[in-house]
């Protein structure tokens, strides 16, 4: 495999590892726990994403969905925990507490009785993504209505929220329909994945990198 082919195939992973490296550089022991958990998760996600890609490319294991079911479930819980400590609205905080109970229950029920663990859990993914969009929009609304005059472009959480807004906004409809598309229009699903979903992955990681760099600047 030529280097060019490798880059074309794995370019989203490059962004993923770039985000991971910046997250590790930003990590400080004295940081609030919700930031530390997020940074560690970015590192973990890069590993899982790479493992998923290697499984498909080199071992021809086409069904790596169980891996993504797991990591997406964890991802939702970590982002919800992060927003629990960042958002000020009491209502949203209560919704997050409800999410901590409802989502794992739904995830388990879906894994055991509805879609199964080895099929992509589109229901859980769409439900979780809906909540993530709600939290991201809530944070952006909080920034919009805030009276503080500090630049929003120096606020790491603003960049994180933007990253998740675009990422889940683009991914939720696709992943929600993915099982159907794979069975009925595989080529469209594949091309859409390569052109749109991979791009959204890169966009998310780029915005996360900007957020981490803002965090680093703030710490100075």
């Amino acid at each position, binding site marked *: 495999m030529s280097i060019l082919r490798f880059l074309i195939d794995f370019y989203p992973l490059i962004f993923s590892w770039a985000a991971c490296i910046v997250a590790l550089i930003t990590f400080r022991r004295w940081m609030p726990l919700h930031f530390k958990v997020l940074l560690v998760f970015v590192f973990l996600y890069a590993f899982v994403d790479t493992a998923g890609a290697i499984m498909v490319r080199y071992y021809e294991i086409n069904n790596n969905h169980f891996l993504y079911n797991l990591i997406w479930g964890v991802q939702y819980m970590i982002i919800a925990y992060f927003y629990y400590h960042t958002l000020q609205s009491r209502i949203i905080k209560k919704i997050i507490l409800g999410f901590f109970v409802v989502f794992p229950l739904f995830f388990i029920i879906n894994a055991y009785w509805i879609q199964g663990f080895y099929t992509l859990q589109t229901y859980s993914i769409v439900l979780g993504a809906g909540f993530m969009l709600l939290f991201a*929009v809530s944070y*952006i609304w909080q*920034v*919009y209505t805030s*009276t503080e*005059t500090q*630049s*929003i472009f120096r606020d790491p959480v*603003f960049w994180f929220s*933007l990253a998740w*807004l*675009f990422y889940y*906004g*683009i991914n939720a*409809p*696709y992943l929600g*329909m993915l099982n*159907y*598309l794979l069975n*009925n*229009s595989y080529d*469209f699903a594949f091309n*859409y994945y390569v052109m*749109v979903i991979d791009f959204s992955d890169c966009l998310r990681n780029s915005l996360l990198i900007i957020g981490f760099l803002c965090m680093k600047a703030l710490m100075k």
Partner: protein
Amino acid sequence: MHESINEVKLTLIISTVLIVLFGIVIVFALLIQYKRRFLHKQQLAEIKSRYEKTILQTELKILEDTYKSISQNLHDNVGSNISTAMLLLYKDEKMNTEEIETNRKEALAVLGIIVDDLKNIARSLNPDYLYELGLSDAIRQRSDQLEKTKRYELELYIKEAPRKLDRQKQVMLFSIFQEALNNIQKHANANKIIVRLNYEENRLLMQIKDNGKGFDKSEAGKKNSDKGSGLLNMKHHSEMIGASFTIESEIDRGTEINITVPEPYAYL
């Protein structure tokens, strides 16, 4: 079946486009809001800086007026009183003991007045004297000085304030009072001045009235005269502390200035 899959594809594409557009709109809305907030912050900083500049200018003006009044006081009162005391203490060979003793007592009384005057002068030389003295006492002291010129009959009605006003309000109100007195001295040709300072529960009223020749308000506003700029200054200073300023005047029927400060103890 084929139509159904096409609908799904279309829904997916449209929803993705809509969400991306929504995200972009949000970013633009935030940008506009941020810019607006930044401009607002800048405007506030400008207003604050202008306000502080005016306060400083007003304090300097008060200081300048105070120095003028001190100079006048030293010349008219202290100087003449010292001369009087010197004359009284002069011993003429023709004077008997009783006369010398009477003169000595009178000289002591005059010296007492001089000491009081000098104390007042020393106090007014302190840049914080207005705040330390309080508005009521500063008005009393300035009125006393004016009364000593014997050109005016002064009536002062002051209902004491339960506590001190904040510095800016005192500076502005005192400057309005000084400006009004200056106008009376320069233009009014009056011989009677009435000053009222009334503290009420939620407002402070200050009134300065004279029996001078009065003026045509519309003319005073049109001309770029000393009196016109003085009136504008008073109005401007009132606005700066959120007070209302009204002036009533008629030819040959005197002038009345009323300033009402709502919530006088609220901080600016």
